[in-house]
């Protein structure tokens, strides 16, 4: 757990006078499930966009999978996987066609694609659904497929932006099992969520308030530190001081 995959020092992003992300610093280790929490407007999304190479920081340094966030945005994209809160595969393409597309996007060869797709289909128990249109699958299955496809190119880090929004508890549970499995296999998971019970599943959790990281530790130690019974309480204690609204 000493191998650092994401390293951020004083990362700042301003939009005009507004400081969306204010000098945040943290490290994320390989194989860790890193929970990135914060109320709406706390700067989570902005920070995540910088880590994904989608926008450039105003100041500060950071590296993701060995690539610099200031100048290697395009290289970062090749080493990360991304799954958004909205289901974002193509409903009018089949399971296999979706896999083929994203494998193609990440530059996998035909042979690699076939192998990797077979592997993922077997793991998801989806072999019989290979040619089913994704639109016809139940939501829980889609979510799992989405995650599988986000890891099709074996990225070092997977960014999950509120991956379980609108999903029932049973499916959420199954989804988290997949996340654990991936983390065990050495993939680093960077996840944002609104569900505080999910925060308990993370190896370490950071809580952002008003563009600043206010707490960062394992869920157990955070609860101890704030003398709280659950992560939900910890979050409330921290978020109470927030000045930014929605």
């Amino acid at each position: 757990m000493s191998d650092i995959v994401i390293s951020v020092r004083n990362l700042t992003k301003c939009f005009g006078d507004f400081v969306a992300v204010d000098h945040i610093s943290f490290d994320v280790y390989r194989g860790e499930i890193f929970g990135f929490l914060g109320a709406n407007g706390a700067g989570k999304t902005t920070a995540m966009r910088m880590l994904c190479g989608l926008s450039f920081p105003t100041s500060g340094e950071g590296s993701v999978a060995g690539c610099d966030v200031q100048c290697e945005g395009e290289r970062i994209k090749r080493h990360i996987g991304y799954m958004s809160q909205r289901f974002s595969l193509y409903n009018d393409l089949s399971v296999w066609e979706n896999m083929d597309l994203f494998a193609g996007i990440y530059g996998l060869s035909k042979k690699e694609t076939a192998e990797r797709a077979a592997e993922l289909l077997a793991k998801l128990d989806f072999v019989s659904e290979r040619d089913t249109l994704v639109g016809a699958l139940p939501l829980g299955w889609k979510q799992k497929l989405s995650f599988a496809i986000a890891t099709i190119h074996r990225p070092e880090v997977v960014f999950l932006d509120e991956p379980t929004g609108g999903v029932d508890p049973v499916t959420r549970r199954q989804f988290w099992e997949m996340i654990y499995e991936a983390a065990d296999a050495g993939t680093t998971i960077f996840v944002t969520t609104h569900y505080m019970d999910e925060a308990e599943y993370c190896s370490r959790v950071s809580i952002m308030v008003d563009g600043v990281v206010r707490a960062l530790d394992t869920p157990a130690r955070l609860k101890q530190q704030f003398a709280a019974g659950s992560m939900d309480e910890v979050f409330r204690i921290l978020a109470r001081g927030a000045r930014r609204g929605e």
Partner: protein
Amino acid sequence: MKNNFLSFVKKESLHILRDRRTMLIVVLIPIVLMVLFGFAISTEVNDIKVAAVAPDRTDGVRDAVERLARNDYFTFCGYTDNRSIDALLRSGKTDAVVVFAADFDRRMQSAASGLPSSPAIQLILDASNVNTAGAATAYLQGVLLGAESQQSLFETRMLFNPQMKSAFNFVPGIMGLIFILVCAMMTSVSIVREKEVGTMEVLLVSPVRPFKIIFAKMIPYFAISCCVLILILLLARYLLGVPMSGGVAGIFSLSLLYLVLSLSLGLLVSTIARTQVAALLISAMVMMMPILMLSGMLFPIENLPKFFQTVSLLVPTRWYIDAVRKMMIQGASVVEVWQDCVILFCMTALVLGVSLKKFNDKLE
């Protein structure tokens, strides 16, 4: 990284092929429009129903009426009297009534010998449709004066479209309209759909460059449009008999330029619109209306008010239709319509530049 572009083209093609209904519409609309405008809708005036009022059926009168009855454009409905004219026109049983003067022969003779005389014939027309009435007047005058035409002052020759087929005129207009429909509307909707559904987000986080995503999107639509273009040209040549005397190659290459322009317009719309409905509305209202009204497709530009004539200079379709008309019907070569080509080219470059810039700005 090379094959990720192909993956995209494949994906876009699959989207289009899966969407059977849209496919069908894209192929059917041109055919329907061509047939509709080619055969059903025409500005030619046919089958004008004419009645005659003649107090005195002299030889001269009968001669004139016979010429009317023989003419293909007219259907002679028989003689009537002064009192029923209004009722006949009102009921729509006739479109025009020819009233001969009582001393028709004498008046014609004095007119022929250059003596001053009062009119020999009165034409009464149902002008509720201005175009029909106007054309009918011209035809009636021509036919009724037929006897005197030997000494007519004018000799008229209609060049390029001697039968005055309106279909010739419509084909370029339909082309101008359809490519905007297929390229601009469909690409914009398809780009905006990805934004709306959320897939665009995932694509932007991937290592594919945004401009590649866009170009990959354009390629299948470009291919479809090429098929539609070929289809239209075939229909125009063999079904409607449009001469295409300026050379098919020229028409084709100019159309390709216009396709690129339409695709760029679609991209521009997609950078403005946030939802598919908005994209559809912008394409329909902001682009279709000017094209229908101001491109010269339906109404001659010269007939527009000065203000709209100026606005029409900005409508790309105006230049495209103008050039295609010249090449298809007048037999002009590409070189002869160079002005239109240059204008279209500049417009394409401008729109493409602006939309690519806007697209990139949106990403940050």
